[in-house]
Every structure is written in C-alpha cells, then in structure tokens.
C-alpha cells in the first residue's frame, strides 16, 4: 500500500500519545505495517508532545520536515508551530480550542487569535479541517475524550486506510467501561464533523 506519514502534536495531558498508539493498534489489526514513535519525558509537565504514525512500506519511525501527509493538531497554536512538517498537499486536522501556555500569562509573548492561526495554516497546506474538539467532548459528557474526537475526525477525513470498525474495536478494548460509551460517541461525532467537510475540501 501507499505509505502514509502522520504527525500528532499536542500539549501534555491532551492524550495525543494514546491517540497515535490506538491508531497504530487498529492499523496493525488490519495487517497494515505500522511504526509509531513518541517523545516521552516531559509529557506530564505541560510541554509539547509529539508523536508520529507511519503506515505502509516504511521502516523509519519519524517524519522529517515537509514530509507529513497528515498533521493532527490538538491545539491551534501548536498546530501552527508544527507547520514545518507540512508540504503544499498536507491535510491538517486541528482542534480550535486554545490552550495558552503559562508564558503568556506572565507576559512573555502573545497568543495569536484562533482565526489568525487557522488562516496561517490553511493558506499553505492542501486542506484544513478545523473543529472544536473540546466542545464536542464536553457535549458527549466526557471532557477527556478530545483524543477520540480527533481520531474520529482523522478517520472521517478518509486520509488513512484504517476502517472505523477496526478503530472502534481497539478503542473498546482499551477504554474503561465507564468511559466507553462517551468515547465511542466522541469518535463518531469527530467522524461526522470531518465527513461533512470532505466534499467541500
């Protein structure tokens, strides 16, 4: 199959490492060759957390600048910061809910508006899907389900050869019972949001 290179970017605590691992699990369950790479260490301390998922006939575990087919960003400014991973054809899926770093609070730097961030991204890449993942997560009753929303949007975009059913199976087997229903709902809602944009994109 064609190689797919994905980069996940987020802030410690948003669950993007789990999202990339679950995507890898689902791909593997479909017999797709998968490598996932993660940067651990500072994840719990509010820093930037990056992971990569490579699907198909590829051995390298990371994605160089300009070589991401898909960039999944969990925070708008962090998505913009990772723009160097993209090329003119890259699909970017980003959460629009801002999470300003504490440096802004103590007067070191300005946090751009969400509109500025989205404009800066969409003016350079192939396609942008922007959604308020935090709002959707809250609506399904599980504020921690942002990563499920983002996974749903990724699969809804049609950009990866992973079947939603395989993904849901993996989500089901790795979610605590109390959160299962809301996680699957969050995933579905994310899928719907992105599927709606497919024709427009």
């Amino acid at each position, binding site marked *: 199959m064609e190689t797919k290179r994905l980069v996940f970017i987020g802030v410690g605590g948003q669950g993007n490492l789990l999202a990339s691992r679950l995507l890898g699990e689902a791909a593997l369950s479909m017999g797709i060759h998968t*490598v996932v790479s*993660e940067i*651990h260490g500072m994840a719990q301390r509010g820093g930037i957390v990056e992971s990569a998922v490579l699907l198909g006939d590829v*051995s390298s575990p990371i*994605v160089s600048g300009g070589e991401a087919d898909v960039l999944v960003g969990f925070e708008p400014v962090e998505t913009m910061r990772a723009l160097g991973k993209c090329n003119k054809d890259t699909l970017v899926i980003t959460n629009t809910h801002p999470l300003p770093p504490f440096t802004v609070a103590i007067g070191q730097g300005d946090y*751009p508006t969400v509109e500025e961030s989205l404009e*800066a991204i969409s003016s350079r890449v192939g396609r942008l899907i922007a959604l308020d993942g935090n709002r959707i997560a809250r609506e399904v009753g599980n504020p921690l389900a942002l990563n499920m929303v983002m996974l749903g949007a990724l699969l809804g975009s049609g950009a990866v050869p992973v079947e939603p059913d395989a993904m849901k199976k993996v989500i089901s087997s790795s979610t605590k019972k109390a959160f299962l229903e809301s996680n699957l709902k969050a995933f579905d809602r994310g899928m719907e949001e992105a599927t709606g944009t497919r024709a427009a994109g």
Partner: protein
Amino acid sequence: MHKLLTDSPGKEMLLLGNEAIARGALEAGVAFATCYPGTPSSEIPEQFFRISQETDLYFEYSTNEKVALEVAAGAAVSGLRTIVTMKHVGLNVAADPLMTLAYTGVKGGLVIINADDPSLFSSQNEQDNRYYARLSGLPMLEPTNTQEMKDMTARAFVLSESLELPVIIRTTTRLAHIRGAVTLGDLAPRKTRTHFQKNPFHFVCVPAVSRNLHKVLLERGAKAAKASEDSDYNRVEGEGPWGIVANGVSYDYVKDAVADLGLSDRVRILKLGFSHPLPRELCLGFLKEVEKVLVVEELEPVNETELRAMAQEARIDVPIQGKGVAGLSRLYEYDPALVRKAISSYFDVPYQGPEPVDTSHVPELPGRPPNLCAGCPHRATYYAVKEVYGQETIYPTDIGCYTLGLLPPISMADFVICMGSSVSSGCGFSRATDQKVVSFIGDSTFFHSGITGLVNAVHNNHKFTLVILDNGTTAMTGHQPHPGVDTAPMGVDRTRISLENLVRGLGVKDVHVVKPFKLKKTIEAVRATQEYDGISVIISQEFCPLFAKATGQARKTKPFRINEAKCKDHRVCIQKLACPAMFVEGERVKIDRNLCIGCSVCAQICPENAIVPVKD
C-alpha cells in the same frame, strides 16, 4: 496478567521498544533484574516491576546504576540469567564495576541495556556509549526495530553465557520509544536459585589475579569477534557498486532512502547489528566489492574510524566517508530526509522530495516550555528559599523535575552537571566564592549520589545549605520507589530509610524538616539556616501530587478561586509562582479549578487575601 506474559508464540503485538526488550528477556528466562530508572530506559524496569509482582522474577530498583550492576553481578557470577537497565549517563556511574566485571566475566547470562540519547531529549549530554564497548572489551548489540529489540535481548543471554561475558545492548531514545509489531516467541522457564562456586583466582580481582584475567578477557574478545563474524545481525543486503554502512535507527533511514532514491540495484548495505567487535572479514569483503562507501551513524564516527583502519591495514584503497557529508554531523539524531540528502549528495543522485511549506508568515509564537505541575511542592520550596536568599545566592541544582527551577520566574538553577553534583559542587562554590550557596537535590537523587557529597561537606567543614526536595518518589522518570519511600501503597514490601535519620547520622547538626505548603514556617526554617555557621540541611517534605493521586495518597482539598471583589490585580501570584492552573482572561487572573489541587500557596502570598477555596 501482564500483557508481556502472554503465552502465545507466533502472536503479533504492538509493543513499545522498551517493552519488546522486557519481553525478550522473559523469553530467555530472565530470573533477576535490577536498574536505576532513567529516560529513555525507564519503561523496561517498569515492566519487570509489575511482572515481579505476578511471578518469581526477582526485580529491584537499586540505589544507583553502580549498585544495580554490582547486585546484578552477584547474581550473574552465581549463574542466574540477569538483566540490568540504565540510561547512557547511568553507565558512567556503573563504569567502575563494568570495567572489572569484564575481567571476571559471568556464569549466567548478564545483559546490560544501555539507552543513549542523541539530541538530548531528556539528558545532560549526548555521549556515544559505543565507546564503552571498546573501553571495556565487551560485546555490543544494536537493534534497529522493535522485533530486533526483543530477539536480540533473548539471544544476548545465550551469547553472554557462551562467551562468559556481560553483553551490552545499545538502544537510543528513538528506538526505545517506538511502537512496532513484534511476533512473540516461547516464554522460557526461570531458574531463580543457584549455588555460587567459589573460585578466588577468577573472581577476586587483586593484581596477581587480574593480570591473568586481562589475558582471559582478550581471549574471550577473540571469541566474540568470531561470534560477530558468524552473526546474522551483521549482514550485507543488496547488490551494487556503492556501499552504505549503517547501525541502529540509521539503518531504517538508509533502507527507506535507498528505496525512495530508486537505488536498490546500485547500493549494497552493510548492516552492523553485532557492532562490537566488528565482523572484520565481513567488513573487508564488503569494502573490496564496492567503489565508495558512506558510513551513516548517529553521534561519533566509531564505525567510520574502525572501517578506515581496517581498509588501511588490508590495503584496500576505497573512499570511506561519513561525518561531514551533507549534514551527517556528530551532533543530534538523524532523520529520514537528512539521510536521504546525504546519500543523494555523496553518490551524486538527484532527488526532489516534498518541500516543507514556507513558514515565514507564522508570527513569533509564545514558548511552551515544560513547567512544574499545578500544586508541585517544589514551587513552594523555591518560593520560600528565594524570599530569604534572593537572587545573588548561588543555587547549584541537580537532576529531576526540580531542574525546571531553571526557568523564569523561579530562575533558581545555576549549575548542574550530573546526579549528585549539587551537593559536592556546593562545597566548591562555598569555598571559592564570597557568595551564599543553597543547593537543591531531590530525594531519589540524594540517595543515588548525594550522600557521599554530604559526608564530604560535613567532614571538610563546608558552609552552605542543602535543600532535599523530598516528594516521596522518583517523579521525573515515572514515580519509581527509592530507599526513602513507603512502598506499601505500591504493593511491595521494602524497608524505608528515614532521610532525617540518615542526614543526622552523617553528622549534620542543623537539620530542618519542613512542609513547604506551610509557607511561613518554611521561610522561618530557611532563615535559620542563613544564621548557621556550618552545613545546614532542609528536608522539604510533600508528595508529588501526581504520585499521590496515582497511589491513593492524595489529601482531599478544595481547589481555589479568585475573589474578584478583593483582587486588586497585583498579579504577585502569577508573576512569582507561574502555576499552570492560573491564567489571564479579560485582563484578570483566574484559576482553572480542574487543574488546581488546592495547595493554597498562592492564597498565602496574595497581598489582598483574594484567593479563597471554592465553596460547593
């Protein structure tokens, strides 16, 4: 049951590189495991810790890497299959036993997992530990993916026993933290008890014995060279007039680049997986067959230098290059595009990859450095010390979460080089300068290598203050226990050593145990050390909130909020503490009640008393 105990040979699982290593050891019937945690190796012992609670595997978090290797040595020379894991700088700490354990050798297989950190994701340097294999004379294996991480670890035990030498497996951050498919093999039964066969002329390294043992090491090294020659971890792949030599994760980049550049019929790759000793005959055969050679290896030019020496000795006149070719540097980790460019440049093959988008229009973005967590007790301790000692004092610090005290607004880190250096360098700073000195060290780091420094400080009459930040765990690397921890909530039975008794036992007279969330009392204790003419120790005791929560030891507290009627917007709270639970919205400071753990430190410093507990 722990997933790595899954007894289904042939089953494919997505495993973290470090999990694959642990699984490999289990497939070899490992009976004894020790470590000191350190990124990027920490997930290996995490598996053993949990597995040891379900099986008869012996596992311990040792006090430091030297201790871990010596404990492992006792088990391995007695005949048990043993593994010890550490990060690259940990092997510096363990270098003393390593060098002479190479002389005695082992009976049971001993595998040393060494995790290097190119690009310094989480370390104080990026030294290349392939040199340790050369320095000690020990064999080294370097895997390239998760499957090999498992397979090589299992095979390393067999190799170690056949050579009677410890075997070092070198990974890097990149490999340790990838997840990939691993096909499981059989789990072997464990032999957990043995009988030590005395042999003082082989195990007691006095000069007369070691003179002979050095010879034995060289003989075993020769056997290792033969094993390397025969190993299928070293092999030539493909056919063609151009040669590329690669090890570790670089091999993956090379393989992809050769395919991307369409060079499969022109390039042969020499893959070095058993990388010390190098397979001389295989290398020479390779060098003879090609017109030019590119060596791709992260960090130091180890293979490049040795291949050049081999070629010179065998009078093979072939160009060999590595460092200096189009971006192949001794600095930092490589990536696919960098390696592709180097190959395209060295062999003069055009390549046009996807261009990164132009990002010149992106405005300057606010930084997002890691920060001490909301409710981290270190923030409170730093605040109290700074209130008394100010900015002019020298603050030697150490290795742990609290190194983040480097960042503003705390800005209380002036010198750190290695584990334990805060204490000993404090001795030097206080003698050499006319400034006050306050050193910071974590509880686990103090046990690891702060104790000897403190003995030195007492004995040599140094005058400074040492703050031991006792958060009841080894927080930075993922909440491992250490000798000062009550391990019962973690489900294991270990003896707890009292930090206070230890410090007093070392001869420190001026000892203060404080609770940092009680700011006033803490500041009083700090002030007392300022007057003391000698060595003072402050033990600042409060749980890491993440650890307390994970182990059910968190106190029930209410989050705080800002009473906006009282708040005069001085922003002392946010400016001095930079707690991540605080943010500014509509020009007013607010507290995120989901992040706030109710430590109350901000409430104690607010000049208006405008920070109050949430009601409901």
